[in-house]
């Protein structure tokens, strides 16, 4: 008995170390992958219900996960030095593509965001979600930190050019995420607190002027966010219905595929931007807490990995990617619960559609590449 236990135990240990060795060889971080896989699995279960039991929707999303995982594995193998050296070219290409989209983009969903590559439709703004933080990290890599005023000015230009191009598409959600990703690099780079406060003040002024450049529907979103009841059947409908869905779910939820708000289509965009409300309705507070815990685990692990990297480029980029992931979650959950205006940000790895799954997983691939090569680029 004892003998068997020992051998079986050692066999288990051998298997584990075997798997760890494989993961190490593939430059994959086990805990991070497990966290992401759990979120994806939960997301697919929810999506089946939220899409009105559409198996094809679930399968298409699963296919995107496969594609995203492939991108992650691939990018994890890339040498960070190569990544860093190609960053300016990537950034430049992204900007050119954005200009192309602005000029002759395909009209989808009333906004010009797509580039039709025959095989699939490519969204340059997704590329910029990675290229902008990479560019900022690249810029700060050789420069002393905290960044000087001059650097800040240059960085502001590097961020605002693509952000402006995306915002005029118009895709406020993605623009905000790109801006956040770039800004996080600067913050992590050691931006002084005084400057941050000053910039927030500037942002407030900017918001005031920005209001004048907003499209009507964007203004309406902001107004409805401030008071959804003013237009209960129009722009306020989304947010009212999503709050009803979440609130009526209670602590334990109405049960999988039994959320009346979602199943009877009272909840708009139930499988895309508002899927968080479906979870709230069908799985209750417990379901949402579980999901938030998974997200926090992934973000924490990613931030930890970032702190373990050893050069400025890797640190800033990895930190930004990790924190951007949280920003995603917070903006989506915030808008669905009525804390933030509705800006059209999907719930990462759970919402249906878009190329964001691939981008997100590619981002984590880069993060793993940065982490796994830390010793090689140490000195």
């Amino acid at each position, binding site marked *: 008995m004892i003998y068997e236990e020992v051998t079986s135990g050692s066999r288990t240990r051998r298997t584990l170390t075997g798997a760890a060795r494989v993961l190490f060889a593939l430059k994959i971080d086990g805990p991070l992958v497990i966290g992401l896989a759990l979120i994806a699995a939960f997301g697919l279960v929810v999506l089946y219900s939220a899409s009105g039991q559409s198996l094809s929707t679930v399968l298409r999303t699963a296919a995107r996960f496969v594609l995203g995982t492939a991108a992650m594995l691939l990018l994890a193998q890339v040498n960070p030095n190569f990544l860093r050296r190609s960053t300016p070219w990537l950034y430049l290409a992204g900007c050119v593509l954005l200009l192309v989209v602005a000029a002759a983009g395909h009209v989808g969903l009333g906004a010009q965001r797509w580039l039709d590559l025959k095989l699939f439709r490519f969204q340059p703004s997704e590329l910029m979600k990675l290229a902008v933080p990479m560019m900022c990290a690249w810029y700060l890599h*050789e*420069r*002393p*930190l*905290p960044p*000087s005023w001059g650097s800040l000015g240059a960085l502001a230009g590097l961020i605002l050019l693509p952000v402006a191009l995306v915002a005029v598409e118009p895709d406020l959600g993605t623009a905000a995420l790109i801006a956040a990703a770039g800004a*996080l690099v600067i*913050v*992590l*780079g*050691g931006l002084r607190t005084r400057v941050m406060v000053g910039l927030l003040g500037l942002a407030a002024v900017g918001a005031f002027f920005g209001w004048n450049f907003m499209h009507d529907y964007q203004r309406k979103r902001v107004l409805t966010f401030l008071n959804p009841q003013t237009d209960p059947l129009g722009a306020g409908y989304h947010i009212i*219905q999503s*709050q*009803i*869905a*979440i*609130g*009526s*779910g*209670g*602590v334990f939820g*109405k*049960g999988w*595929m*039994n959320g*009346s*708000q979602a*199943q*009877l*289509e*009272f909840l708009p965009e139930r499988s895309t931007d508002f899927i968080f409300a479906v979870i*709230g309705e069908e799985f*209750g*507070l417990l379901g*949402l*807490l579980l999901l*938030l815990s998974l997200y*926090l685990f992934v*973000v*924490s692990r990613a*931030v930890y990995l*970032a*702190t373990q990297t050893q050069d*400025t480029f890797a*640190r*800033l980029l990895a*930190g930004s990617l990790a*924190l951007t992931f*949280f920003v995603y979650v*917070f903006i989506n*959950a*915030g808008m669905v*619960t*009525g*804390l933030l205006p509705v800006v059209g940000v999907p719930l990462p790895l759970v919402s249906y559609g878009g190329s964001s799954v691939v981008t997100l997983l590619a981002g984590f691939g880069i993060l793993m590449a940065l982490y796994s090569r830390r010793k090689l680029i140490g000195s």
Partner: protein
Amino acid sequence: MPAVRIKDHWREQRLFDQRAIVCAALMALATLGLIVRLYVLQVARHDYYSDLSQGNRVRNEPIPAARGLILDRHGEVIAGNQPAYQLELVPEEVPDLSDTLARLVALGLLRDEDVDELERTIESSRRFDSVPIRLRMSDEDVARFAVRRFEFPGLDIKTRQTRFYPNGALAVHALGYVGAISEQDLKHIDRASYAGTALIGKLGVESAYEHELHGVNGFREVLVNAQGRSVERQGALLAELHTKAPTAGGDLVLSIDLKIQRVAEAALAGHRGAVVALDPNNGDVLALVSLPGFDPTLFGRGITAGEYNQLQSDIDRPLFNRALRGTYPPGSTVKPVIALAGLTYHVVDPEAHRYCAGSFHLPGSSFIYREYHNEHHGAVNLDDAIARSCDVYFYGLANEIGVDRISAFMAPFGFGALTGIDVSGEKAGILPSRDWKQKTFARPADRIWFPGETVSFGIGQGYLTVTPLELAHYASVLATRGHIWQPRLVRAHRDPRSGALQPLAPVSQGEVPGVSAEDWQRIVHGMIGVTQRGTAAAVGLHAPYVFAGKTGTAQVYTVSRTEKYNASKINERLRDHSWFIAFAPADAPRIAVAVLQENGGAGASAAAPIARKVLDAYLLDADGKVKPSS
């Protein structure tokens, strides 16, 4: 000054870690905010949002209650409910509406002239609501559609409960009908209790007893999606839905005897007129006929404008309820009550003879009042005067009694007043008096009562008018020797489930005051004389029971101005109206009847045979023997 700063990796690492910690703290704060928000939504305000969610997904769908049946006194169904097939169309499922409707016309399922209106109706409906486009399809229509159904996406045959009158137009003027709820109906009904009901009683019993017949609607909670569409789903969503069953409307048992009704309608068929038969002992209306009638089903299935105009403009006025609303001079049928007034006021000696030379003139007047057809009755006493309907006798008698006393005496018999029958729409005739004339006429010269008017009053001409119902009521008061019962069409309620009858007590309106039994007997004897040796002797021939009757002939002066001039019909329409009242058996009456045949000529020849048929039908069994009274 060193303008160039050198990278300090250690410091940068520390700075990064610091910032990472701050960011982590901010993340924790944001997450906490989110959790607080979720707590507010899902715990603190859970009940509030649950109610909202419930209100979103559930819609109350009414379940109409089955309308109560209407039965005749023996339980035969006069008005029932029947599932009817109707063609319904769901707009959003029909690819080409105009083409679809055109093909239905080609199939003979729609009429070409209805298409435009239908198209408008369909376009104004919600895209997913089923719109009825053809009601009451025959089995043949259903079959014709069924084999082509695959060519008509979005169309389907549905079954709905509709009002069904198995006897068609029989007794329609007593029954009334059900029709679409109108704007006017909406003002006095509780909309909620009529949700899901398209029809409401109009006229007659259907209208008067609407409340009893309607019942209480139930409802069913239906799961709806955001578009308001009903959705069928299994599972937990369905379990919480409630249903309340409807309570069917109560059945009504009418006093009408369909057998008598059929006989009366058959006897009057082809003529315009009315027959009202009453049970003199309780006011039960045994038959109520007004011809021509119409098929009440037309209204239940939605009458077209064309059909309605046709009924409306028909020269015979089938929509007009002659029995309840037609007012005519009663002619000689009033003679018994004039005689009774003479006896009661001791104006006349019943045995004294008066001489009838065919005409009468008032002292001091040159106007000559002629006998009908210029007959000469010779010396007649009261009994003869009634039996042979001697006008001269009653000209004199009326003159002697005087208008004031005649009016006062006739009032208790129901002249000039509503009988109070239990359906609406009844009209009162005119019982003229000095007072009435004073009030009615505008010119002072017309307000004076002339003695000559009293003379015509004595034979039921002039201002005096009655409805057939009033005259039947009068016959029934004569039959009971003065007992007055309010006529009624409904004699009992029936529980639709148990079938238990709840009889309604007949309503007595007292008695005619101050008439001696002897005098009653005298005028009844005179009326028996009518059917044995008098004006209606031919009709009374071989009757196995003794019956009392009185003929009447009302002069028609002009054709109503609303009717079109029609040369071939004008002569017929200028003929006198024919009246007959009767009750039988004379000593213990079980039925009293009044018959009016418009333009029928003399009462004896047209109306009396109809009355005889009604009496026979009621009193005789299959072998022609008098049935014992029940």
